[in-house]
């Protein structure tokens, strides 16, 4: 299913004494999949028409009503309470698998955390739907085999202090990465766009300039125990596969392979995750999160 994005600029029309008006050419961005169409009026930045922002808002509006945001909402709602496995695809293959801790695989990894990092957090089994995985690093800043643990709550005050986190607003989940070689732990703080814009406005603007859609996105910032922020920032967004593969991956802005090509996975696509390297002002890695609800499989 091809998605077309069309920019239309306005020109003044004539209207005669009988009220007949010449053809209307409004200034809009239209997103269509052939059956469903969304029209977004142009928006301004600093009092100038911003076609780039208008296009991203149009894509977000399409995905809200007909596309990936709607699909992801339906998938989550209809599978509430089930065990989860997230397959994280990158460059055509699964880079890692995140399991909810109530699975056999997830519980085994929690055993490792409880043995190796006892008391780093009060209770690794606090929420059955927390996610855990073991991964071999495929990208910086990760170096050694690590265990990734996602806790579905905002960071505790203890963690905020331990990692010197500077934020006022957090999303209700965060990640901890446990290095199996050095035993070091880093945190990935998840923050909404408003907080990213408040604390790192230039970084936020640079990233939003690159990603294909705006409105559903949020950010992951990695800090080590010295309070140092990684220059590699994760941005997560929801967009239809066609938008990312046809309109984004294959252009000069981001020269990366689409993470997966199996169309049967589309209904399970939750998020895209892009890694932005602030040292080079470019996206260096692109991930796709495919969510499997395991009670059905």
């Amino acid at each position, binding site marked *: 299913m091809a998605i077309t994005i069309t920019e239309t*600029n*306005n*020109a*003044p*029309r*004539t*209207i*005669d*004494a*009988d009220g007949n*008006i010449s053809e*209307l*050419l*409004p*200034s809009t961005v239209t997103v269509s999949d052939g059956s469903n169409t969304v029209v977004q*009026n*142009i928006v*301004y930045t600093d*009092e100038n*028409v911003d076609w780039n922002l208008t296009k991203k*808002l149009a894509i*977000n*509006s399409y995905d*809200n*009503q007909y596309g990936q*945001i709607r699909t*992801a*909402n339906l998938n*989550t*709602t209809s599978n509430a309470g089930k065990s*989860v496995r*997230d397959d994280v695809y990158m460059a055509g293959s699964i880079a890692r698998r995140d399991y909810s801790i109530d699975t056999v695989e997830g519980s085994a990894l929690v055993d490792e955390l409880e043995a190796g990092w006892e008391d780093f957090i009060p209770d690794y089994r606090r929420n059955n*739907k927390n*996610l855990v995985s073991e991964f071999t690093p495929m990208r910086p800043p990760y170096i050694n085999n690590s265990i990734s643990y*996602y806790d*579905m709550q*905002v960071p505790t005050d203890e963690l905020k202090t331990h990692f010197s986190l500077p934020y*006022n*607003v957090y*999303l*209700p*989940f965060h990640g901890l990465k446990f290095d199996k070689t050095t035993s070091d732990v880093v945190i990935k703080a998840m923050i*909404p*766009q*408003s*907080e990213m*814009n*408040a*604390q790192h*406005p230039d970084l936020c603007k640079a990233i939003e300039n690159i990603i294909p859609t705006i*409105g*559903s996105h949020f950010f992951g910032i990695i800090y080590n125990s010295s309070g140092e922020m990684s220059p590699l920032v994760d941005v997560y967004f*929801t967009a239809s596969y066609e938008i990312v593969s046809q309109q984004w991956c294959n252009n000069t802005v981001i020269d990366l392979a689409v993470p997966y090509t199996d169309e049967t996975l589309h209904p399970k696509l*939750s*998020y895209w995750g892009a890694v932005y390297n602030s040292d080079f002002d470019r996206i260096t890695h692109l991930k796709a999160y495919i*969510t499997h609800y395991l009670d059905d499989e």
Partner: protein
Amino acid sequence: MTLISSGALALKDGGTNPSTSTIHDTGFSAFSLAADTSFSLHQAYRLFFDGEVNAWEYSVDTLVDGTAYVYKRSSTSAYHDSNHQNNIYSTSGFNADIGTALELTGTATGQGAQTYVSGIGLNASSSSTLGSLSSSAQTFSSTDGNSRTISDFGICQNTNSNTGYNQSQDKGNIIWFGLVGQVSNTNAAAFYNLTLYDSSGNGISSLLRQNATYEYDGNVSIWTWHNISDSNMNFVNQSNITRVLLTSASAVTFNNGISEEMSGGTDANPIEFSDYYKDGTYHNTVGIPTSGQLAFSDFYGKARTGSGGTLIHGGTQAHTYSSSQYFTSSTHGVSSNFTFQGYTSRVSSLAQFNGTSITLTFQAQSGSPIYTNSGWTTVKVWRGQSNNSGSPDVTLYRTNMTFSVSNNGTSTATATWTQSGTFSFATYFGTSNTTNYVEIE
């Protein structure tokens, strides 16, 4: 909602509220435009570098020439001679606010290093007023309830063979329209579409504000359209344009009942007119007397400001509901700009996550604010509405929220209020992707 600006107004409820996309219609024969043959637009450029005096020598290029047909309200209108000068080795006065989109960069003659210098010079009649506009058509209410006064209107078909180096002649066909004061460049504050008509009823439409170049010169806000085809310009009798119609993007519903608007429909019989003084029982709306003589006409074009608070901002914001295995969120897109604690600001976040926390963030849009934990009392949300008709679905109180600031004293300052608790998504702020109306007092 805003009360109608004219016509039959009832004390309680005038029946079905009228909807219209018309913001202001001057009617035919409202305008009489004056012909100004002195009109032209210019831009200076570097001609060559004079090595003897070690300075650039300047020349001036004509971008637009022709007879302009003009309404100019007063000496502070945007249409005035810029008194620009070419002093050979320097230029001055190229600071007109009409036609700035025609400003060129790059080479002026295609020969070596000659480049255009920024700024437009405007030649115009020295008269302090030009043309006329009937008194009843000079002012109107914008959809955000503010009073607007027309300061400028003009049209000129470019008779110069080009609009600067390598620019087509018809690029310089321009139309401009101005309002007194600093009017935000938005549909709500100004207008969406302008249509002009000559006395025969022929017109040019789809002059969308979003396609015009906007300037504020300290006195008036001016919009200029350019690049209008010769065929469109020739379609109307430019010297005899008599009517201007301003419309909104979509139909706006106006209230035709004073009590319905000012009490939010909460007042019950007997409805007493004396209850509707400002600072009385129901409202605190600027422009309504606080005592003495009170007339129905005082309420024309007014939108209610709630009691105990001044309306800071009211407008629609796009709402998104998103649910995943990680978190569930209800978020709003950014608002239009408003003034908060003396600074142009906007709502950059109104969201709730997982049903346990609400976040409200104001973000600086100009200046370097130092935000404090004050300045607003309530945030009200009407789910799925484009106006504040009826009671709000949600009211947030600043006193219930925790305050924090970031980057205070800088251009990226933000003020955030958060509240923890239990918040159902159905209430805060809906489970569908729609538009909500948000009001801050």
